[in-house]
């Protein structure tokens, strides 16, 4: 098959389309009807916004933040470690909510009139950005094991405190830091990564990451 033949085949396809009058079925009248319908019905795009996962995260996160805020305020600073830990957790979750809201707003502002690679990259990057927020949220893990600490517990030099509580915080800190450093596009193929993000809610995000790789390859090669 010569190079030219593919182009010839495509022209043949064009000719057949004309002959079969398929294009004529998409008539001026049909376009006008569709257009008028679009104008009057305030048509919504069929392309589902990718922010469904983020929307749920904001809703559930909002409830969690409210709960944490009430705990922190309700304690009136009586228990230093408790207030400190809860406040840190509160701040992490407020950060996540703001990040998700910002990403949802950006998704809605995607410009379909831009270069194809640029638009597609923006769409995929915004979807994959959930992972960046998640990676930061892992850093809050150690504070889930410090809320019950107290000055008396530390001063009491209790064996249980130094033998259990401190190593647990240490391990959680190391784990959180390791995840923070390693959750990235480069490790998306690793087994631990797939296990960690194994679930229906994560699959669109992982696909978006793969698509980002594909876009980069398309641009570079």
């Amino acid at each position, binding site marked *: 098959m010569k190079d030219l033949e593919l182009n010839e085949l495509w022209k043949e396809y064009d000719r057949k*389309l004309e002959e079969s009058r398929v*294009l004529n079925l998409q008539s001026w009248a049909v376009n006008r009807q569709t257009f008028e319908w679009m104008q009057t019905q305030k048509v919504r795009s069929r392309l589902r916004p990718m922010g469904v996962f983020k929307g749920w995260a904001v809703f559930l996160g909002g409830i969690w933040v409210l709960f944490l805020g009430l705990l922190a305020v309700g304690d009136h600073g009586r228990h230093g470690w408790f207030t400190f830990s809860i406040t840190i957790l509160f701040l992490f979750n407020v950060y996540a909510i703001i990040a998700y809201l910002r990403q949802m707003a950006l998704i809605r502002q995607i410009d379909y009139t831009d270069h194809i690679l640029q638009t597609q990259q923006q769409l995929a990057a915004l979807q994959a950005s959930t992972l960046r927020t998640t990676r930061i949220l892992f850093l809050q893990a150690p504070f889930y094991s410090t809320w019950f600490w107290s000055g008396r517990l530390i001063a009491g030099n209790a064996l249980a405190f130094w033998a259990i509580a401190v190593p647990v915080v240490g391990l959680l800190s190391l784990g959180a830091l390791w995840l923070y450093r390693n959750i990235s596009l480069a490790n998306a193929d690793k087994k631990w990564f797939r296990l960690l993000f194994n679930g229906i809610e994560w699959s669109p995000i992982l696909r978006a990451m793969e698509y980002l790789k594909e876009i980069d390859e398309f641009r570079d090669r």
Partner: protein
Amino acid sequence: MIFLFIRRIIILDMQETFLQQIEANKGIIFKISRSFCRSKADQEDLRQEILLRLWKGLPRYDPAYVFTTWMYRVALNVAISWQRQAKKSSGTIPFTETHEHAAEGEFPLEDIHSPTYLLQKHVAALKELEKALMLLYFEEKSYREIAEIMGITETNVATKVSRIKEKLKQAILNDKHWVYERS
């Protein structure tokens, strides 16, 4: 009152111009929707979505550029996003073997042994970005225009076109329905 009247006139004029442009280039929308969706219902939905996005994006259209270039950008961006969304929900891609019999007889050019059908089939099976590139190539857009629409360099366009053409040729020649030059 006068302001509203003038505004209405401007909008009607915009609509008229927009519809004329769409009418003149409806083949673009049709061929893109056919390459990105298999079922007629999906094609119709995609065409409507493209029309909607074109109209919404019209205020951002820069008349310094050719209308069709802008139209290709919007239509292909919407079609790619549409297909990616369809993949997410169904895990399928259009033009698979199972669709062939359903497609048979849809309209005259759908003979599954015809070279034009095989080209359609294998173009539809390409990855979204490759497909967008080849649609532009087959529509005889210059490498410069393709580069402008896709957002890559002209050299990159040339390399990719040549590589994908080879891939398409091999896919067609190895297709079980290819009966023309099989020895």
